Each structure stands twice: as structure tokens, then as C-alpha cells.
């Protein structure tokens, strides 16, 4: 919103602050000023629209003038002079639903001369970014920019009959705007209509059929109030944002409609001499009752601000902003909210904390530590666990990446997902970002391909959320890109998994997915519960090297972490160790053989570790293990150790393995 400094000065008596100082104080006390620009002999203060969202009154110069008058202790000048317009209006107004249009005021004028505006008017509008069109339209825009009341002028000779209807559009009703855009409406859109059809889109834009032209001599001036949500809905659905709709969607003050007519009439008499009013004002309204005053206990206000303030000072501040204040008792004020702040902005005492706070200045408040009992906050174990995981991964050489939560149909399909079954974005930013990721893997694969352009080998990890229709699951993914046979990379990822948690095992799977290497894929178990996959990307998924990936369900992994740990007493009696070499087929599993050996060793087994894998002529392998045995309450005799060893050898033979003894 652009504010003309000259215009503001006309509305504040003796405003002496420079444009820069006014802008600075507006920022500190009212709304964010984005800077001051010279415009001829004037200065334009630009204020961020977002900071005016809650202030319908600041969409006109008189609202900002009121702020400046309060800030600098000056007198506010009202540009509107009420007039006596008696007599019945020849215009009838028929409002279908007063919740959508609480008030519709109109005035019929004749003997109008449509011509270009005088320079002062055209320049004033241009200085605040409005185009000068002709004297009649320019006056309506001037009033809007001055008192925030949007207005519209119809050529009354182009209207059919003398009743103005405010009604819902018929389904499929056609409407052509002043700028010749064609819209097809539905009953959610509110229109202004004559006997024949829509002549304006209520609160948004006038229609082409009844627009002002050079030959216009009789006009109907509309100054109405429309429901904010309805205007906003219509303007966003039709993608038609106008200066009027921007104001109405902030909840304008219905008291202002007649004031707008007074002000417009005064200006039209200047720019179209000889203009005459026909009858009085047509004014249909069903206004909401004036809100009850807000009780403001001054002690409470002091506690909210965290600084002392006298009742007199509170009262003076509120009155400078044109609130009416009564004293209920010595410590409580009864505050009557002016109509232009009551539509949405101010209804509770907390709103008044802001009014007083901003005017006394927040820099007058001394920072104070709260006096509150010390409390231990609720714990957040998942977050700590995630931090532990990423720190461990980083220590093992994995750099953390963050990926988007979005995927394309193609990326989803490549990783075996049916796009129709995924969470879909209704308004994606790009065609390739229409799905939410049900897996970290598609983008991990992309990271592999992207970085392979710069490095021969690298490793990275991500902690992120899988998004499924019914829930979000935190996952950990790690990947290594390498040249060569890829075995070492898988081994490194195995080691990483074992660093992340105790109880990790790998179970090769026979059923692999299309993106997995069919002979290099294992399920990852934690304390025998499946928690993820370890695999090499299928060669069709990656070029130039190999991509090895670990993908773990962090939520599950966290649940499987032991809650408490109890130490094992140190062994008091010596243990004995012996090595065994098992002759196994070419594709025997080292882990499976180890499990079999451990099972046969029985209760006295202390530990078992794999030593080496030695290829034999004919394709078989010799797998060597070291077993350590011992009893907890005594020393095993050499005969007992030999008996265990023999039992294992016999047992393995029964399983079909020969042993190299």
C-alpha cells in the first residue's frame, strides 16, 4: 500500500515529522514501512501489505493519518463532511442475504459531465499507484484511497428498471467485467444485478454493460459493504484481485458507506460542476449490533506488558486512537472499540495490550526473567536417537544430505510404487514433484548419480521421513558409490549397521526387488526383527560404478534398543579355545554355518568367531572358526573340551558337512 506524504499531511494538523521520520515511526508503532520514495514534490511511503492484513482502516490514508496523529500527538482532520440529503431515493435496493451484504448505500446523480480529471486529482491517484481514467471513476478511487471505502459508479441510463438487487449469481450466469473479461459464475458468487442480469461482481469489479462513458450524464454511486470471506472466495476462485477486493477481504467498516457517498459528492461537485443529487440516499442495511465494550483491568495489562503504567496513560493512549474509554472502577477501564477497528481487528482485551504496548513503545519494557519453578521437560528420545545415528554415521565417513519430500510418477514406479497409492500433491510446484516420498531410496539413487559426476567414490546418508497415506516413518538411508567389484562397499555398510545398533544380522533374500542386485541383497535384522535392507543397486539403475545402499526403519530400530543394560560378572575360570574348519559348498553362508556350530557347542560356548574363507580345488570352500568354551563355575578338563569338540564335529557331519580336522 502506497501512502502519499502530502495526502497524510492534509489529514493531520501541523504534522512536522519528515517523510523518513514518519515512515520510521509507522514501522515502530503500526506496520512495516518498506521505504520512502520521492514522487515529484511528494514522498511516497510504501507499507508492506502483509502487515496491514488485520487493519481494514489502514487501507486508506485517513486510517494511517489517525495513527500518525496519535504517534505525534497531533489533531486528526476528518475529510468527510456529512450532508443533509433528504427525500426518498428513486433507487430501490433489494438485498437477498444481509450476512453477505450488511449494507448497500447508493445515490443517484444527474447532469454529470464525464471528462478527464483535473491535474491535482489525476496526479494524486497516480502518486499512490492508481490510474486516472475520468473524473467520475477517479473520484470513486480517490475516496477508496482516502477512507478505504471502495465505490463504484454505474451509468444509470444503462440499468434496467430502478431496483438494484444484491443476490447470489445464478448457476452458469455470464458476467463481462469492465475490462471485457468474461466469467461464468455460480451461486457462491455475489452479484449486483438489475432486472436483466448481473451488473457488477459484488466487492470485486463492475460490469461492462453499465460502465461510465463520455456520454454518461446520470450515474448511480454505489458505496456498499460486503462479507470479507465471500469476496475473498470469489476473487480467488475467479483469479481476479482488485483494489476493491483487497480491501473488502480485510472486513471493512459498514459505517463507512454513507461517509463515502458524502465525500464523493463533495468531490464530484468540484470536478463536474452542475452535478445534481436526485432524491436522498438509498440505504439498505442490517448491521450487526455494536460490540460490547471490552473490560480492561489495568493491573492485568501491566502484567501482560511486564511494566507499570498508569490508568491515565492507558486512557490517553486509547483515546488518541479514538477508542471511547470509561472507568468502571479505579483499576478497570471499559473500552468502546470504534467501528473501523471492530469488524475483526479488536474484540478482546489482549488486542488492547497491543494498542497500549505499541504506543508506549516496546523499548520501554525491561527484559525480565520469569519466576517459574524449575521443571524437567518431557523427554524426546526419538530425536536423541536420530542425532546418535547421524553422528555415528558421520564418524564412519558418511556425509549427511537432506532431500526433498517430493517424487515424480516415474521415480515412484522405478522403485516399485504405484503412484495412485501414494499421497498426492493437489497443486505441485512442478510436474515431477506431485507425489510425497514413500521411501528415501529414489532420491538416494539420484544423489548417487548426481555426485558420481564429481567423485570416483563417496558415501553419504540421510535421515528423513517416509510419507505414507496413514503415517510418517523416520528412515535412515546410507549409500556408497564405488568403482570395482563393490564387495567392500557392502561390507562397509554392514559394518555401519553394526556400529548403529547391537543385535544386527543380515539374512540374504531370494526374492529381490527390481532395483536390487538379485544376488547382493539381504534383509537387515535387529534382535531377529526385520528393520530394513542392505543391497547393491541393480546395474540397470546406475552408470559407471556401483551403488550400495542401506535402508533402515529408524522408528522400529529405536523400539528394539534395549531399555536397560545389566553387566555380566567377569569370568572367574579359564576358558579353552580350538579352531574348526568346515568344508562347505561354494554358496554356503558363513553366518549360517556359524549358527550351526554355535548350536552344537551348547551352553558352554563363550564365543565363536569366523577366521577365514579358503577356496578348495573343485569349488568347495573351507570355512574356519575359532570357538572358545568354558563353564561359569569351574575349569573344563581337557577331556570335556575334547568331548565338546567331538560333539560339534559329529553334529556337523550329521548336517552333511565334512570337517578338516
Amino acid at each position, binding site marked *: 500500500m502506497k501512502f502519499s506524504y502530502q495526502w497524510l499531511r492534509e489529514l493531520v494538523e501541523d504534522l512536522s515529522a519528515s517523510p523518513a521520520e514518519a515512515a520510521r515511526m509507522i*514501522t*515502530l*508503532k*503500526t*506496520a*512495516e514501512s518498506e521505504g520512502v520514495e520521492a514522487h515529484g514534490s511528494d514522498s511516497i511511503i510504501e507499507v508492506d501489505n*502483509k*502487515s496491514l*492484513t488485520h*487493519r481494514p482502516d489502514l487501507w486508506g490514508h485517513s486510517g494511517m493519518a489517525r495513527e500518525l496523529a496519535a504517534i505525534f500527538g497531533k489533531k486528526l482532520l476528518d475529510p468527510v463532511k456529512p450532508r443533509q440529503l433528504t427525500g426518498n431515493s428513486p433507487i430501490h435496493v433489494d438485498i437477498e442475504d444481509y450476512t453477505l451484504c450488511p449494507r448497500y448505500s447508493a445515490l443517484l446523480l444527474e447532469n454529470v459531465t464525464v471528462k478527464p480529471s483535473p491535474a491535482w486529482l489525476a496526479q494524486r491517484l497516480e502518486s499512490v499507484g492508481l490510474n486516472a481514467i475520468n473524473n467520475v471513476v477517479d473520484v470513486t478511487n480517490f475516496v477508496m484511497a482516502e477512507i478505504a471505502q471502495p465505490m463504484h459508479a454505474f451509468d444509470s441510463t444503462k440499468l434496467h428498471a430502478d431496483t438494484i438487487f444484491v443476490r447470489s449469481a445464478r448457476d452458469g450466469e455470464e458476467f463481462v467485467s469492465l475490462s471485457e473479461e468474461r466469467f461464468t459464475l455460480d451461486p457462491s458468487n455475489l452479484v449486483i444485478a438489475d432486472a436483466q442480469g448481473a451488473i457488477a461482481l459484488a466487492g470485486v469489479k463492475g460490469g461492462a454493460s453499465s460502465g461510465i462513458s463520455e456520454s454518461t450524464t446520470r450515474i448511480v454511486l454505489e458505496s456498499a459493504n460486503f462479507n470479507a*470471506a*465471500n469476496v*475473498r472466495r470469489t476473487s480467488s476462485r475467479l483469479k481476479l484481485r482488485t483494489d476493491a477486493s483487497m480491501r473488502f*477481504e*480485510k472486513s471493512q467498516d459498514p459505517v463507512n458507506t454513507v461517509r463515502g457517498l458524502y465525500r464523493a459528492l463533495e468531490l464530484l461537485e468540484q470536478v463536474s460542476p452542475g452535478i445534481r443529487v436526485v432524491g436522498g440516499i438509498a440505504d439498505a442495511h442490517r448491521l450487526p449490533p455494536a460490540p460490547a465494550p471490552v473490560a480492561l483491568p489495568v493491573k492485568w495489562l501491566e*502484567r*501482560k*506488558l*511486564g511494566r507499570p503504567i498508569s490508568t491515565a496513560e492507558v486512557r490517553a493512549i486509547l483515546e488518541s486512537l479514538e477508542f471511547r474509554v470509561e472507568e468502571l472502577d479505579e483499576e478497570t477501564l471499559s473500552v468502546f472499540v470504534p467501528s473501523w477497528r471492530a469488524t475483526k481487528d479488536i474484540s478482546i482485551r489482549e488486542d488492547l*495490550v*497491543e494498542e497500549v*504496548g505499541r504506543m508506549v513503545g*516496546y*523499548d520501554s*519494557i525491561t*527484559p*525480565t*526473567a*520469569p519466576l517459574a519453578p524449575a*521443571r524437567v*521437560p*518431557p523427554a*524426546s528420545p526419538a*530425536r536423541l536417537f536420530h542425532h546418535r545415528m547421524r*553422528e555415528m*554415521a*558421520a*564418524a*564412519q*565417513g*558418511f*556425509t*549427511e*544430505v*537432506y532431500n*526433498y*519430500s517430493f517424487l515424480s510418477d516415474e521415480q515412484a514406479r522405478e522403485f516399485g510404487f504405484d503412484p495412485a497409492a501414494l*499421497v*498426492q*500433491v*493437489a*497443486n505441485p*510446484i512442478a510436474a515431477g514433484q506431485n507425489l*510425497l516420498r514413500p521411501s528415501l531410496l529414489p532420491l538416494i539413487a539420484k*544423489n548417487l548419480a548426481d555426485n558420481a559426476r*564429481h567423485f570416483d567414490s563417496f*558415501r*553419504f546418508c540421510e535421515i528423513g521421513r517416509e510419507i505414507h*497415506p496413514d503415517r*510418517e516413518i523416520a528412515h535412515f538411508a546410507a549409500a556408497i558409490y564405488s568403482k570395482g567389484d563393490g564387495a567392500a562397499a557392502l561390507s562397509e555398510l554392514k559394518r555401519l549397521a553394526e556400529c548403529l545398533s547391537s543385535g544386527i544380522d543380515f539374512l540374504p533374500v531370494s526374492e529381490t526387488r527390481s532395483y536390487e542386485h538379485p544376488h547382493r541383497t539381504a534383509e537387515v535384522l535387529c534382535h531377529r526383527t526385520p528393520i530394513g535392507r542392505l543391497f547393491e543397486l541393480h546395474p540397470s539403475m546406475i552408470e559407471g560404478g556401483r551403488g550400495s545402499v542401506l535402508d533402515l526403519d529408524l522408528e522400529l530400530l529405536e523400539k528394539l534398543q534395549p531399555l536397560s543394560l545389566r553387566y555380566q560378572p567377569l569370568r572367574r575360570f579359564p576358558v579353552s579355545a580350538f579352531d574348526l574348519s568346515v568344508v562347505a559348498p561354494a554358496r554356503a553362508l558363513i553366518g549360517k554355518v556359524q549358527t550351526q556350530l554355535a548350536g552344537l557347542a551348547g551352553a558352554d560356548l563363550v564365543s565363536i568367531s569366523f577366521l577365514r574363507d579358503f577356496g578348495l580345488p573343485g569349488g568347495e570352500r573351507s570355512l574356519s572358526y575359532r570357538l572358545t568354551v568354558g563353564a561359569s563355575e569351574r575349569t573344563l578338563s581337557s577331556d570335556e573340551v575334547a568331548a565338546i569338540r567331538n560333539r560339534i564335529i559329529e553334529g556337523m557331519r550329521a548336517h552333511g558337512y565334512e570337517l578338516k580336522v
Partner: protein
Amino acid sequence: MTGFLELHSAAVAQLEAAATLEAIEAVRVEFWGRKGKLALASKEFGKLTPEERARSGKLLNEYKQAFEQLYEFRKARLDAAALDARLESEWLDLTAPAPGVRPGSLHPVTQVQKELEDLFVSLGFAIMDGPEVETEHYNFDALNIPSHHPARDMQDTFWLRDGRLLRTHTSPVQVRALEKFGPPLKMIAPGRVFRNEEVDASHEHTFYQLEGMMVDRDVSVAHLIYFMKTLLSAVFHRDVTIRLRPGYFPFVEPGFELDIQCLICGGSGCPVCKHSGWVELLPCGLVNPEVLRYSGVDPKEWNGFAFGLGLTRLVMMRYAIDDIRLLMSGDLRFLNQF
């Protein structure tokens, strides 16, 4: 008795000539070993008179001590030489690169987030989390942003086909945390948020925020300023000057924009602060009673403050990152620097 001197002189001469540990040992064995020439000499003492025996014994003992002294001296010399030779042979090129992997880097957002989490935990705040896919209720309605409220324009929203949305801010966690734990509560909620915006060097559709809230019996603007000053001084590792000015956010009342005095120019004005001396840093305010009511908390009994810190923005300030897209790029040339 005759010949002792010759033998001793020969032993000394050979010892001095011997160049290895083996050679001096051989000399020792030849002369003073169990069957050594000088060791055997004492066996001939039987033929001597007691006086001669005593004199010869004394002499022989002196020769033995002299030999042993020289032997130890020579041995020490040769040991030292041998050690020197070994050390010399063990020369290593310590500029050769060490094998093995180096630690990876944590994402810069993770690092700053962790730092802030630790800071807030030390101030007694809990760390909370909420879903990235949110309902309209938690993201807007419960935060006092009803549908068709113009404040919804402030946040371009990714809507999902099932009617839900991607959270546009971490503020929904305020409501979720209050519903779960009730007052009094001090919490922060760092997390990923989404805005439907075109991406360029300074705009991202995916970025990180850190929400904070304190709800207690009598929380004031003075308390809010105190916490913000403490927080920001810790974040920037120096005492900072802040100011509050009015800002509109429907979930706080009163609402503020918090500015920090420009750390580059100290407030005198420079391009970073657009010559104003101040840099807009975070929105904050006292929690709107409507939000408390939506969270099942009685606003007559409790109130609080809330703030929203732009984590991504803070990371960019800290590391002077001039292109926001790098953070979500997965590019290890960038990420390995942290």
C-alpha cells in the same frame, strides 16, 4: 703366573678390535668363559705358595675386572650402534597419505539445529515434533487462521488430494504439544516446512523453522524479550541488541516482528541491513487466547509467548551461504565443507 699379562693384553687387544656383538662375546668366551684361557689359569694356583697364590689371585682378579669393564663399555657402544642402525633402517615417509575413511559431515542445518536444541534444553525447554503432513485444523484453524482469512495468503500452501496439506510452519506443534502435555510447558519444535513458492537463490519450497513456546501462569512481553535476548546472544556468540515492533500473525496477540541490530555495521547502516541499522529476524508474540482455547487450555488461567525462528535463514547467515538451493541439493562438494 707368567703369561697372565700377555694373555690379558691379548684379550684387551682383541676386545678393542672386535666390531660386532658376536665378536666381543667370542673374546669373552676365549679368555673368561668357563674354559677360557685366563679362567683356567687359576687352576694352576695349586702349585704356588700361599703368598704367591694370594698375589696371583689378586692380580688375576684385577685383570678380570678390567676386562669386564672394557667388555661392558664395548658392548654398550655396539648396542647403541646396532640400535642406531635399526632406527636408520626404519625411516618412514610421514607425508604419505594415511589410508582409511575420514569422518563425514553433518548437514549444516543439523549442526545449527542441534546447537539450538542443546541451548533450549539447558533453559528447561522440551523438544517436540509434529507431522509434516498436517490437517487444515492444526495448520490453520487451531492457530486462529480460519478459511478465507486473508492471513492464509501469507503462506502459499501445498494441498494434498486427500484434503490435508504440507505444514507451512512449525506452529501446529504448539497446539499438538499443549494438547498432549498441557500447561505449564516450555517447548521448541524444529522441523521441515513447505511453501508453494518458485525456487530461486533466495526462495525454497522446503526449508526449516524452529518454533518456540512458553505457557505458564503470567507470561509477559518482558519475559519474551528476556528469552529472545538470551537466545540470540547465545546464537550469535555475543551480546545483541533487539527491538520489537508490531507484526501481525493471527496466532499471537500482541504480535511482533523482532529485529536485531545489524551485526555487520553495528547499527550505523550498511547494505546488509538496507541502511536501516536493523535486520528483521523472527516473528513472535503472546499466544492468542483463541489458540490456547483450541488447545484445550483455559486462557483465563494460562498464557504464554511464542516465536518462530527461520532455521534455514540462520544457517545461511552463519555460513554466508548465498544460494538457498545448495542446502537441499545433496551435492557433496557443498556438504563436505561442514
